[in-house]
């Protein structure tokens, strides 16, 4: 592994009397593709700028392979940044932009030539050497920026929302390119984004941040399936958040008297919960199955709720339904249905129809206990 281990230890950052970061600690492994995910204003970019050296932390330290880098200016840190707005030098050609770090070091022109061509090939931009940034499309600009950031062989690559200025299709292909480059050169990538699908699809681990605090660090699977708190449960993917009091416990299966819906069965790997406790639990919309007729042959650990659709949104590969459960007309549940086969007569469920929602107790998840 050529990358560095990056450790952020109880870093705090104040801007006048606004605290952007509150005791943030992260331990990023050598060669990891690590994402920092959060809504705008959550402090993720500030954290990245502190790692890059553009901002000083008010407290705490940042270390690369056990060396504290806080006293070092950005040009002395073995890490490079890919910026959201590309930050290409408009007066230089593509070639000179990519060659910039090597020219600063007064590298041999022959070495520069071969290195620039190698890194331009890595981002599929051969043949564009003599163009100015103003003549490139957004995706090409960002690929030039990636080549420029990699050519000096940094130990860590910082990516600050690198794809957010691009359109959706381009974002996908560039994300896959980034993943491929990460696998090929093996250095540590720290990827800041507000787009959860980007973070989940390529990262080894994800840190979810909100209001200057790291709420959860885990693999994309853990972040999605086992959110550590209500914010993560709500922020990652779509979710139905429910509250209720635990009635009984049978091994891993809990029966919860859910507000407005009555008894629902939820499986939890944690044995922490006890009957009588009030808990927050969730069911993902795509895990609920929606049918017009009452499904038969359900096992005893199934939940079944009759209801009425009040909104249905067809979007090709799936439909989204918003359902008022019969037990409580004021509540609404989100249900996503994948269209796995051709629908000869169009979508079979539309708005204002009697439906049945059902899901396995295993698909529910208990997030946390709510203090009463």
């Amino acid at each position: 592994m050529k990358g560095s281990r990056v450790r952020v230890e109880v870093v705090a950052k104040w801007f006048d009397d606004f605290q952007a970061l509150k005791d943030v600690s992260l331990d990023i492994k050598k060669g990891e593709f690590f994402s920092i995910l959060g809504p705008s204003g959550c402090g993720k970019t500030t954290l990245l700028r502190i790692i890059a050296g553009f901002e000083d932390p008010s407290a705490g330290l940042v270390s690369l392979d056990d060396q504290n880098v806080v006293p070092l200016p950005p040009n002395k840190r073995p890490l490079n940044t890919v910026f959201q707005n590309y930050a290409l030098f408009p007066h230089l050609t593509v070639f000179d932009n990519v060659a910039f770090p090597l020219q600063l070091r007064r590298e041999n022109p022959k070495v520069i030539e071969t290195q620039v061509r190698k890194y331009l090939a890595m981002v599929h931009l051969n043949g564009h050497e003599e163009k100015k940034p103003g003549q490139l499309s957004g995706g090409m600009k960002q690929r030039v920026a990636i080549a420029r950031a990699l050519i000096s062989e940094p130990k860590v690559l910082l990516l600050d929302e690198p794809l957010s200025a691009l359109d959706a299709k381009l974002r996908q292909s560039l994300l896959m390119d980034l993943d491929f480059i990460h696998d090929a050169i093996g250095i540590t990538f720290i990827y800041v984004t507000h787009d959860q699908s980007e973070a989940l699809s390529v990262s080894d681990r994800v840190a979810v941040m909100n209001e200057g605090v790291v709420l959860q660090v885990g693999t994309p699977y853990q972040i999605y399936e086992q959110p550590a708190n209500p914010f993560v449960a709500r922020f990652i993917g779509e979710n139905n958040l429910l509250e209720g009091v635990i009635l009984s416990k049978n091994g891993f299966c809990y029966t919860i008297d859910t507000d407005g819906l009555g008894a629902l069965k939820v499986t939890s790997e944690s044995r922490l919960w006890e009957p009588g406790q009030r808990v927050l639990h969730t069911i993902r919309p795509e895990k609920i199955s929606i049918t017009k007729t009452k499904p038969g042959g359900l096992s005893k650990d199934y939940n079944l709720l009759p209801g009425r659709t009040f909104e249905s949104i067809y979007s090709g590969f799936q439909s989204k339904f918003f359902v008022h459960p019969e037990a409580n007309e004021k509540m609404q549940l989100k249900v996503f249905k994948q269209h796995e086969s051709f629908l000869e007569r169009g979508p079979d469920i539309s708005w204002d129809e009697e439906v049945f929602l059902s899901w396995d107790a295993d698909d529910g998840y208990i997030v946390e206990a709510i203090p009463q």
Partner: protein
Amino acid sequence: MKGRAGVLYTLPLMLWSCIFFIIPIIIVFIYSFLAKGLYGGVVWQFSLKAFSALFSWSFFRVSLVTLLIAVLSTILTLLIALPVSYYLARTKNNTLLLALVVIPFWVNLLLRVYAWIAILGREGFLNHLMTFLGYRGEPVQFLFNFWAVVIVHVYTYLPYMILPLYSNIEKFDFGLLEAARDLGATHMGSLVRVMLPNIKGGIVTAILFAFIPTMGSYAIPDLVGSTNSHMLGNSIAYNIRTANNWPLASAISLVLTLISALGIMIYFFLNRKPARHKVREAP
């Protein structure tokens, strides 16, 4: 149709520049090829005497001094104006600072030059300050020399440089400096390698705004200079008012105009847009 109407719109401007710019230059051009009248004016008789007078040591010397003063004061002004405009562009509440730059425009140039006489003179502020700080020698005359002329030119044309530089630097994306730092450049290195090339247009404009008027300067060397810092402007005035040699004054004016025109041509050359290539999407 639109194109023809467009020509009409420029008519007032064309008339204006004909009456006040092109015709005077033609008059100066014609006068420089005529013989001098005894008590000023010209005699309508073709003569190359004025131009042959240009090939003299004294004219060469005055040209050299003028060029030296213009180049030196332009360089010094630029060295002061660059950091000031950078600071202005990076300061959020810069209204007051910008006002301070602009206010001198409201005061007549002569008054401002007399203020410098009050500062640099033998009885002036600077000598008092030196005495106050413990200087016990004879009062020093800072006026009436080459450097006094340079200093007052630097002072006079500083705002003319700061404003175009400021408006250029303000549009500069300072994120590029961070990118350069990130890629290994020192603070100074990022300014020189990334900012300077991107504000080139502003720098060239600022240089022209200071260099061309300094080349034609008359009042400043007249008031704070000496015979050693005589400039072309003083020669023109001398030949009009004292020597009654209008053709020679016209010839010198023509030379000055040519030098300024050369400066503007260099400006267009440096600011020309590169030929645009067709943008091709990568496969």
